[in-house]
């Protein structure tokens, strides 16, 4: 029927074999994009009139923040699909997205505090955006831990998906926090409607960094999910066949 393609997408084996072919060109591409974007931003973009060189951390900080929020939606949607269709792959994607998202949120918080010290004058302030970002990190960490404490895989997946779905409300709160409350954090510089308040010579490397982070996120998610697939499907026939062919290759 019409939904067959969708169920095929849910097959871990199909995902593993498809991504094996994609990775050969996608991995070098995303690493190259990241290197070009960061080099352009950190070394070649002009200095800022007020902040000098310290603004450059935006090229690491802002795309990481974007991806930690976008990645949360991806994780929650994967959890929702898993709950509705009872497929295995979405739950594996959800669990992997929690690891990558937690790393990106931690990176956002660390680079944010390194940026805050020379500009605001403090490493940490109990600002609305800072607090809700910290809550986001705790949400990611809770999902990782919740996935590990249940002895039964299915129960763990369900609990994680429900927590991920409940936490989605945090994402728009983080996004709008600088507009809703008196805050130390500056408002958004890149605007979808109207002109951005960042000069084009600084904006283009930033946009490239965002694209590169999206690619690098996808790459990390695929690699994590592949590892998760092998761990969970270790007892299936196709994985043992895969292991056999791999080990015979290395013997040759």
């Amino acid at each position, binding site marked *: 029927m019409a939904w067959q393609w969708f169920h095929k997408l849910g097959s871990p084996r199909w995902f593993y074999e498809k991504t094996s072919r994609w990775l050969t060109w996608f991995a070098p591409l995303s690493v190259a994009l990241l290197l070009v974007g960061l080099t352009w931003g950190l070394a070649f973009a002009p200095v800022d009139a007020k902040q000098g060189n310290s603004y450059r951390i935006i090229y690491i900080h802002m795309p990481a923040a974007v991806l930690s929020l976008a990645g949360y939606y991806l994780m929650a949607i994967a959890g929702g699909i898993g709950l509705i269709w009872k497929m295995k792959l979405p739950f594996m994607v959800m669990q992997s997205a929690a690891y990558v998202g937690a790393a990106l949120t931690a990176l956002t918080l660390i680079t944010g505090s390194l940026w805050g010290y020379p500009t605001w004058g*403090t490493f940490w*302030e109990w600002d609305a955006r800072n607090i809700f970002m910290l809550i986001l990190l705790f949400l990611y960490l809770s999902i990782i831990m919740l996935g590990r404490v249940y002895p039964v895989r299915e129960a763990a997946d369900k609990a994680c998906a429900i927590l991920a779905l409940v936490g989605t409300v945090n994402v728009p709160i983080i996004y709008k926090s600088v507009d809703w409350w008196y805050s130390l954090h500056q408002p958004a510089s890149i605007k979808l409607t109207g002109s951005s308040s960042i000069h084009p010579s*600084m904006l283009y490397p930033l946009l490239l960094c965002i694209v590169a982070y999206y690619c690098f996120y996808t790459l990390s998610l695929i690699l994590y999910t592949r590892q998760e697939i092998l761990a969970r499907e270790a007892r299936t026939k196709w994985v043992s066949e895969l292991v056999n062919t791999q080990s015979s290759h290395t013997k040759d």
Partner: protein
Amino acid sequence: MHPVRKQRLLIVLALVVLSSIAIGLLVFALRENINLFYPPAKFSTGEVPRDVRLRAGGCVQPGSVSRDENSLQVTFDLVDPSGRLTVSYEGILPDLFAEGEAAVVNGIWREDNIFYADQVLAKHDENYMPPEVAEAMNNGEKHQATCDEAKYDS
């Protein structure tokens, strides 16, 4: 779509909507507490308690910064469109502290209407531009500090 899956879809949607409403109401009820600072207007209308530690934030009025010659003592006015607050501080100001820029101060508002700060934070804006562009925008003159665009509750 299979009716069982449709039902599960509705449950998932209800879960997201209901929990969002619950947390949304919670955050709405706490909105005053989530604000990092009081704007000068709230000091002018007397809505701010005295003699307790709190934060104030606003635009540093150009021309109001006066430094003591023999110490690190500095006083300045924080303003917004409908208020003014005089701040007294002793210590090193952050690099980005400047007239016409926003600042957040942490301290106590005393009976003499002066805010005694023990911490000053600079709030930088969302504008990024190279020095040449910034200079060109001011027609080559020295950076003309203004508080015109200062908005804190957009």
